[in-house]
Structure formats: C-alpha cells, structure tokens
C-alpha cells in the first residue's frame, strides 16, 4: 500500500482528454541508472568495498610499472630475507621479491576472475533465458545438462582438465576451464527469472507485434533479468578467485615461473610460521578480494531490487 503512495509520487504529468497539461510541478526524469547508483551509494560497505577493489586493481596493474622488482628470480635479491626497506614484503628462498610476486599474482588472479565472470555470465544467461523462454522439452534437455554439470564437483573436474590440456596452465587456459564449469548457477537463476518474466504482458505485446524469439530474449527478457544476473556475476567473481587459488594451490592452475595468489600460498604453505611474510600477504589478499566483492554484490542486489523503493522506517 505504501507502494501505491510512492507510485502516485512517480506519476507526474497529467492524464485526461488532452493529457498535455502537466499536473503540479513535474520532478526531473530520473534515469534508472541514476536511481540504482543512488541506492548503491547508500550501501556504505559496498561503496567502501568498491574503493578498496579499485585500489587493489590499481596496485596490481599499475604497481609493477613503478616497482623495481618483478615476480621472477633475480640474482640481486637476497634469499629468504625478512621484510626490509629494500623488500617491504621480504623475499623467497629462491630469490623473488614478494611484493613483485604479489602484484603479478593479483594481476593474474584478477584477469582470471573477470574473464571467467564475463564468459560464464554470457553463457549462463543465454542458456537459462533460452530454456526458460521455450520451456517444454527444450527446457528439460537444457536443464538436465545443467544438473549433470552441477553434481560434478567443480574442483575435481577443473583439476583433471586443467592439468591435461595444452595451455591449461596459462591464465586464459585456467579461465576457460573454470568458466566452462561455473556458468550453471547463473543459468538456473536466469531461467527462474525468465519463467516469470515471460508471462508478463509486455512479452505478449512483443509477440503480438510480431517479434521473433531472438528479439524477445535479447531485447526484453535479458535486460529485465539484469538485476539477478549482475548479482550472480559478482558472486561468481569471488568463486572464480577462490577456485583459481585452489587450483594453483593444488598445482593444476597457473605454473611457475608465472605466479598467482593461490600458487604463492601453495609455495609458502610450510613457511606460515617460520617465514610468515611469504604466507600472509597473498593469503590475506585473497580473503580481502573475496570479501569486498561479496559486499559489492550485496550492495548491487539491494540497489537493483525494486522493492527497495519502499518506505524506509
């Protein structure tokens, strides 16, 4: 009912036989994007997380240009040195600068995570939308395939495939493998949303106007499912980072001499107590990235939920 009240506020302008006269002062049209941005801005942890993520990305991608050491072994680097002015995060026993490694590792991790997210989101959204739109046997076949993929533990498959395919240990190889097995939750979310959207009259209106199936799916259904898709995608970023870290930790992901955050943790697993500077920086970075992305997802979910327009007590 309070929704009704808000509605009246929205319904500026006029109606009637001429419809041209404006009733009262018409508030300036507010774009949906701005409304969403406003609501997102109110979610403090999400805004702070977005700033942290931006800082982390800048550190990972711009940092190496400024820092003298990269992730590789150098004879100029002392072995197993504690953090110092020359090497703020210390060095490894082989002679790598941990700060250089951390920047490169984050770079690779973020590249994997965003590639996975884009690929899996596109595939999952289209797959789910097609299944939900056509229903019937199309839906049955497509979603059974999704069920099959879902019951296979992601990590086991990824590990098996990643280690045995050529190029499977480069960052894009790893990203492709993770993406191929992580789009299923998104497809289920999108299918659910589309199942209800397709019953809306605007979809019927498009059909009555003669629109093709492709047009209805791409122009009407997917844009309206954008909210849940974006939310699922943010959560997927976190999953991708953790899976990549786990894969590299197990030795099936990115391989030395290249480095990723997971691989750094793997190398340092026995040194957690003796040389903590090797273990904690990459470990905490993984936790931090996953955490901020989950907060951003929370904020986006709230901002995109139309019910948020309701009264705030």
């Amino acid at each position, binding site marked *: 009912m309070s929704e009704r009240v808000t509605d*009246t506020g929205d319904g500026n302008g006029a109606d009637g036989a001429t419809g*041209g006269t404006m009733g009262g002062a018409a508030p300036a049209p507010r774009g949906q994007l701005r409304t969403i941005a406003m609501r997102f801005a109110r979610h403090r942890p999400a805004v702070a997380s977005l700033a942290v993520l931006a800082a982390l990305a800048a550190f990972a991608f711009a940092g190496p240009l400024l820092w003298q050491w990269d992730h590789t072994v150098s004879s100029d680097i002392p072995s197993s040195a504690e953090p110092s002015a020359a090497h703020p995060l210390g060095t490894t026993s082989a002679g790598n600068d941990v700060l250089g490694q951390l920047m490169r590792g984050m770079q690779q991790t973020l590249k994997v995570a965003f590639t996975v997210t884009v690929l899996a989101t596109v595939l999952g959204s289209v797959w789910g939308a097609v299944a939900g739109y056509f229903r019937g046997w199309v839906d049955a076949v497509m979603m059974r395939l999704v069920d099959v993929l879902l019951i296979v533990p992601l990590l086991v498959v990824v590990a098996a495939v990643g280690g045995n395919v050529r190029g499977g240990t480069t960052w894009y190889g790893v990203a492709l493998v993770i993406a191929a097995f992580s789009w299923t939750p998104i497809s289920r979310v999108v299918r659910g949303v589309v199942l209800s959207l397709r019953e809306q*009259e605007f979809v019927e*209106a498009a059909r009555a106007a003669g629109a093709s199936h492709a047009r209805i799916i791409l122009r009407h259904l997917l844009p*309206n499912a954008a909210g849940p898709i974006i939310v699922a995608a943010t959560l997927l970023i976190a999953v991708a980072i953790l899976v990549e870290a786990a894969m590299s930790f197990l030795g099936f992901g990115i391989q030395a001499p290249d480095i990723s955050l997971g691989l750094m943790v793997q190398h340092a697993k026995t040194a957690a107590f003796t040389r903590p500077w090797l273990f904690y920086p990459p470990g905490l970075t993984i936790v931090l990235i996953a955490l901020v992305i989950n907060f951003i997802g929370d904020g986006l979910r709230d901002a995109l939920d139309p019910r948020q327009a309701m*009264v705030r007590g």
Partner: protein
Amino acid sequence: MAGAAEQAEAVLRVEDLHVSFPTEDGRVRAVRGLTLGLRPGEALGIVGESGSGKSVASLAVMGLLPRGAQVTGSARVVGREVLHLPDEELSRVRGERIAMVFQDPLTSLNPVYTVGRQIAEAVRAHRAVSEREALARAVELLAEVGIPQPRERVRSYPHELSGGMRQRVVIAIAMANEPDVIIADEPTTALDVTVQAQVLEALEAARRRTGAALVLITHDLGVVAGHVDRVAVMYAGRLVEQGPVEEVFERPRMPYTLGLLGSQPRLDQGRSLRLAPISGAPPTLLAPPPGCPFAPRCPMAEARCTAEEPPLREVSGGHLAACHFAERLEGRTPQEVFARAREPGERAPAPSPAAGAALLRAEGLVKHFPVRSKGVVRRRIGDVHAVCGVSLELREHETLALVGESGCGKSTTARLLLRLLAPDAGRVEFEGADIAALPRAELRRLRQDMQIVFQDPFASLDPRMTVSEIVAEPLRIHGLYRGHGGAADVERLLSTVGLGPEHGARYPHEFSGGQRQRIGIARALALRPRTLILDEPVSALDVSIQAGIINLLEDLQEEFGLAYLFVSHDLSVVRHIADRVAVMYLGKVVETGAADRVFASAAHPYTQTLVSAIPLPDPRKERRRQRILVQGDVPSPSAPPSGCRFRTRCPKFADELSERERARCVEEEPPLKARVPGGHLTACHYAQERSLV
C-alpha cells in the same frame, strides 16, 4: 459540523487525523486532517481514487500501518482513544469493538488452518468459551453470511473455497464478536459482479444481525449508492465532500465529486452521452501545493483556489463540501462543467452495425488447457475447457464487446483470434483468409492489421525501454521504422494519444496508469492496424482516468475507422462503448446481439443476473431495482455441467421451471439462436426478455 450530542454517541470519531510516510523522495502526506463521525448502526461510504488516502486512514484507525508511518490526531472507538495505544491493548479493541474486512480474501486467511478454526480463534480471542462452543458459533456465523452447508464448510481450508466464499468467511470473522464498527476496505474489488452482489448482501446481513456501524471504503460509486446512508469523498488525503448519499449524488457541491459522477459510465445510459473525464492526474502527495488540491484539474478554478485551501463547510443540512464556489454547482451537469469546447457533449450517432463488412470471423473455436499431475511424469489428468465452440463476427468500424466474469474464456478467445494461442479446433478468418493455415511470414504481415491493447498498463510496457523505443518497436520489427518517418512518426503517434514529444525519452515507471495505457495504445496504433483487440483496457484504471481513455478510444475509432473487439467484465463500460455484445459463460457465448437490445431486454438468465448485479451510481434507482441473485459460484471449467452450463446457478432453473422442463436443461445443450422478438441470439431453452436496468 456535528453537534455535541452527536459526538457523544458516535461509535467512531476521527478527528484531525494526519498520516505521513517517509520515502526516498521525501515525506508523503497520505492523510491530511481527516475528521469523521460514525453513528451507531450507520453505514458510511468513503469514496476515492487510488492514492486518495482512504485505505491509509482506515489502517491508521486499526493501528495496522507500517512502522515508519507517522500518525497524529485522534481516533476514538466508542469513546476510547485508539491511536498510539500499545499493541496489546489495541488487540482488545480490534475484533471486540472494531473489525476489518480486507480486499483480498486469499491473503487475509491463513492457508494452513481450517476456516472453522480461524473463526473459532477470533471468537476465543475475546471470550472465555470452550473450543467446542467456539466451533459451534463458527457454524452459526457461516450460516449467517450465507454459506451453504456450514457444518461441512467449517472443516474446509481456505484454498477449497472460492473467492466469494472466502470473503464471506472474512466477514464472519469480522462479526464474530459483534463489533460496534466494521471497516470494509474494498471488500468486493477482487470479485466478479455476481459474487460482489452476494458478498455485499452478506455484509448487509452481518450489519443487520450485529447492529454494527459500517465503513465501506470503495472506488465504486455504484456500490456506495446502494449500500450506505452517508458518503464521504476523499481526494489527495483530504475529505472534500460529505453528506447523505442521495444529497451527494444528486446535488454534488464539490467539482471533483461532480467530475467522478460524470466520468462513470452508466448501465442506464447509452452511448450517446459522451463521458466527461477530469483532466490531469491527482497531485503528488509529496509536497501538496497550497490551495485546493483539486485546483489544477478543476475547470472552475480561479486565483483564489490556488492561493487558499477551502475548508470543509456546510452547504446545506448535513452536507459538507470543500470548495470556495460550491454554490455555483447548483443544477449543473458534469458535461457542462467538464466538457471542453472541442469536445461536444453529444456524440455522433453510431454507424449502423449492420453496415460494415465482416473483418474478422471465428467459427467454432475450441481451446482446452491440459491439467497435469505433479511430479516427473506429469500425466495429463484433465482439461480446462477454456473456450468451447465460440463463433464471432467483427465487422468493419464497429465495436463488439465480449463480456463475462473471470474464467469465462473471454481473454483466451481474444488470444485465439490474434493467434497468440493456437486453437484446438475451429477457424479464424481475417478478411476471408484462414489465419490458422497461414505460414509464419504471412502471419507476421497479418499482425500489422490486428493489434492488441492489454489490461495491465504496468506489466504491458517493458520497464527497461524508453517510451519512444516502446512505441517504435512494432515498426522496427516489421522494418517500417524509416519508411513511416522514424522519430517524427513516433512523435505523431504520441500526440495522437494525447502525450507530448517530451514524454518519449522517459521510462514507463515515470508515468501514471492512464498515461501508460495511452503509451500501450500508441504502440498498438504504430502499424496502422484496422482492428484493435482491447483486453480489459480500462479495468485497472481509476474512474476519472478511465473516462479519458474511453473517450480516446472512441475518437480513434472515428478518426481511423478502427474495428474494436472489446473484452471486458465491466458492463457499464461496455454499455457505453459497444455496438454489439456477446455474453460468455464457461467458454460459451450465451447471448449476443445489439448492445442496446441485450442490455435493455436480456433474455438469458445469466445476462439478466449480470445486468441486475451491476450497481448504478444513483441511490434512488439502485435501491428500487429488482435484483436477481445467483446461487453459488462458477463451476470449475475442467468439469462443466452437462446440458446447459448455467443450470447449476440459474435462478430460473431453481425457482420457475417444472421438473420436466428442468430435465431438458440437464440433458440438452441449448443452441445459440433467435428465440425472442428483436433479433438477438440466446442460448436458453426458456428465454424470456426482462428489463432490469
């Protein structure tokens, strides 16, 4: 205002009630200074459009507003202040002294308990009686609200009852403790007209039985006319007129009330009189402008109206109005006050329906929807017989109305005609070509000639597209966007439906319901169709907005020579707009013919019950009218009765026919044919004309 003596005896006394809600855009002031009194046993109607604050006011009295709401003022129930009462104490007042009936009976009952238990719970909340006694009382109450076989029904769960029955259960709960006041908030809005008549009857019975005073909140002027003693009109959170019901309906002293009466299509008026809509939309309640809230829409407004808010003052005995110039309304009709120069009050006479050639013809349409079992196998366990052999003919430049209650198959028929659904049997011809046999490409071309306007203006526009994109979409689909002039054509379409070019860049959510419906109409017109299928195009709109859309549709028909198939459950609107009418019941057409004939002298008992159930916004006529109440609810369309489908509810079958005559109704399905003089077709063995308006 009310005298001191009256105040003392009032069962409900609301004084200077203000309610506001904080929202993102600012503070919404939903109710502003409401003052009302209710005498014992009196029935008061509160009329207003959506957003007028009528529901919020009643929820405030019941203490049911959401946490964020700010309430000031006073509300006394039998002398006791109830605003800001702690919840525990309020619970004692609620139910015992004051009870509420909500709009949606589906959500106001708990689905996991039997209705008997829910009524018994209401009884035991206020009285120390045993479970057994409370249940016995539940049976009594169910009988009182007119539920057949109450002894069996107490054990039913809400989902086993129809909407009308559930609403009667809610009324039974409300009267369980013989309250002093019953507040009914749009109690029949979700129900069909014949069921509405039953529920209003039950409410009336509850009132007679308990002697409770009734506050009937509704947007329907007809319902108010027949069921209350006094009426209060709300607009933009304020009370703008109040008085005895005959007085307010016959001599309205507030232009808004006059406008409402003028925009309401009436069953007792033909299509000759053009509706007089109120221009504009209700003001936003965020920052109500100074002065009279109705001034921006009022044709009589003067400088004083925008400067100074008129107080509610007595204009004649017991009749209050909030207008500076109330006296000027003396003896004026809505048409005189609200019709603009370019809109003559009288319409050109409708073209003779027989003149046009048949444009769209349907023969023997059948559509069954399978009902499947739950689980993996999903066997087909039955069929919903949505449409069973419907034949129709729509001629050029005419309006054919398809009327009936929910579930009668009228919307399905409309979708079959458009080929949005494929029929199981039967033919649909458009200008002689069978559209069922058309290949896809041809069907797409046909879509240019037949377009549809939907019921729900909120669901039928894609929320992620701008208005221009929405209106242009059919043109783009058919590759005609450039050919028709692109953006200029879209602007032309918008202006055709009364919107400005500046509206094109906005999104649907920025518009009111009526404006959205105009956008939907512009989209339907984009391909320059010859036929529009209008699926309940005005039923989601407020009366004053609805009138504007009806006038627009009439103008467009004249301008472009369109043929309309008008699907609606609202006979008043149909009476106003239709040349011919087809009445549907359970998937079949039971009566069809010229609208004037069918309404003036309905021959099928179902049409008769429909016509007699439509309330007239005229208190004197409404109270004198003959009512034909039907029994029970519409049977399930998955197991329609044998023979005549209406016989299970037919008052004629129940009361007038002999045993032998009844046997014929049970065994033989009456075909649709001319049975009475005057030329319309009726599907009743014992058709007999009756005048009921």
